[in-house]
């Protein structure tokens, strides 16, 4: 994914992702979904920041919680 894509690249990315997800977006919904996608794209950039090893996410997987209901 490009960090600063032009409109054509965005449209292509949108199309690829939708097809890969198996979404057949109705014609009258495409414009609204695309607007949401562009907003989402802006959002994702903010989360793509340099991080350190301390920012690792495995803390939300606790083997005790996985096994306790079994």
């Amino acid at each position, binding site marked *: 994914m490009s960090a600063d894509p032009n409109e054509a690249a965005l449209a292509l990315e949108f199309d690829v992702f939708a097809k890969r997800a198996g979404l057949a977006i109705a014609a009258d*919904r495409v414009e*609204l979904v695309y607007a949401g996608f562009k907003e989402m794209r802006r959002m*994702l950039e903010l989360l*793509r920041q340099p991080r350190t090893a301390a920012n690792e*996410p495995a803390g*939300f997987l606790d083997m005790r*919680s996985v096994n306790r*209901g079994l």
Partner: protein
Amino acid sequence: MAYENLPIAELGRQLRAGEVTSKALTEDALTRIAAIDPKINAFITLTADSALADAAAADAAFAQGIDHGPMQGIPHALKDIYDTAGIRTTCHSKLREHNVPATDSVVAAKFKAQGAVMLGKLSTHEFALGGPSFDLPFPPARNPWNTDHIPGGSSSGSGAAVAAGLVRMAMGSDTGGSIRGPAAYCGTIGLKPTYGLVSRRGIFPLSFALDHAGPLAWTVEDAAIAMEVITGYDPRDPGSADVPTPDFRGKLHDSVKGLRIGVPRHFFAGAPGLSLEVLAAFDAAVDTLKQLGAIVEDIELPDYDIFSFCGRVIMLCEAFAIHEQDFRSRPLDFGLLTYLRMTMGAFITAADLTQAHRTRRQLSEAVTTRLASYDALICATALAPAAAFADMQPAASNWPMQTMPFNVTGHPALAIPTGFSATGLPLGMQIVGRAFDEGTVLRIGAAFEAATKLHEKRPIL
């Protein structure tokens, strides 16, 4: 005094003293629902017959000196994503319009075990995300303070029902603010407990990592009573926390003098769409807390947008994963808003989701660290009063709620009214506490409620 204006604790006292019966409370609630609900559409399914049977059972128990707890004989209702055995659970969606679960959700079972009276199932945004919508099998709930306005969501029927006095307490769920949002717009209390404190088993998921179950209630004490009933470790909910049950009512009437309260003012001051009325009411709330003896100071946290985006990425990925097959096979059975919001999960990469989880850990640590030197935080809940249905835009990207941060971090957060707009719509703030310290959050809320007495005003319907 009318029953809807009596706190659950007082109703419980009267029930135990034989001054009122559960049957009378239930019949009164059903009468109010018949008169008022057609204006606000809070209920999807009314369970009048089983409610009257529950009430009879509660009265029989009282007569035999059997006391299961504070909700025995008390009418309440559940958001229609809580499974209820033999009673349809629709998620306000065509996709589950005729779904009748075989078993109760843990929360429904806990109320049933207490002998509480379940009046029915309440409107929601479709699958707790899409709404308010007019293209679903059931109409959207309306705001009791002005029925041209939205009640917030997704626990929209819960907020509307409590504000209209149809029940003192209704259960909601909160993944990005779905308890606190309708509480703010409808002028009720709404408690999103600490992540893991209340079992979500049997509640239709929106996002496993962010879903919380909690009450909307007319007063802080009503919410505290509900928490006493529903809290508990559930080994079959992977998110459930094996911790001692907090003391919800023990310090409810203690002074807040000397408590240190932090204000991440940068979250909302200057935010696009911030209403000056919300800001003025918030500043007045700060003054009230100071007059009560609390020490209130502005603090810094990471930027609000980081919290919001982090939560939305996790929520949308998980929501899309849950509904992916239906989006492929029957996409037009979803309402438009649900479709527009949930399909965004299809456009997020695995790397983005991983970054969101890493960010989540950072943010949770940042808030926990701040709360080491403050007893609680306060900040705005909604940036503006409830919008009119006519002003809702399907593709709006600016969410006027500032609730997501504490779904991301897992800390308990209580929505509480701070006043009314010039047009008579409720305004509010949220009180955020340390993990599993609901007692302090409720204590601050109760002190503020007692000082402002905003709960003494009801909408006229």
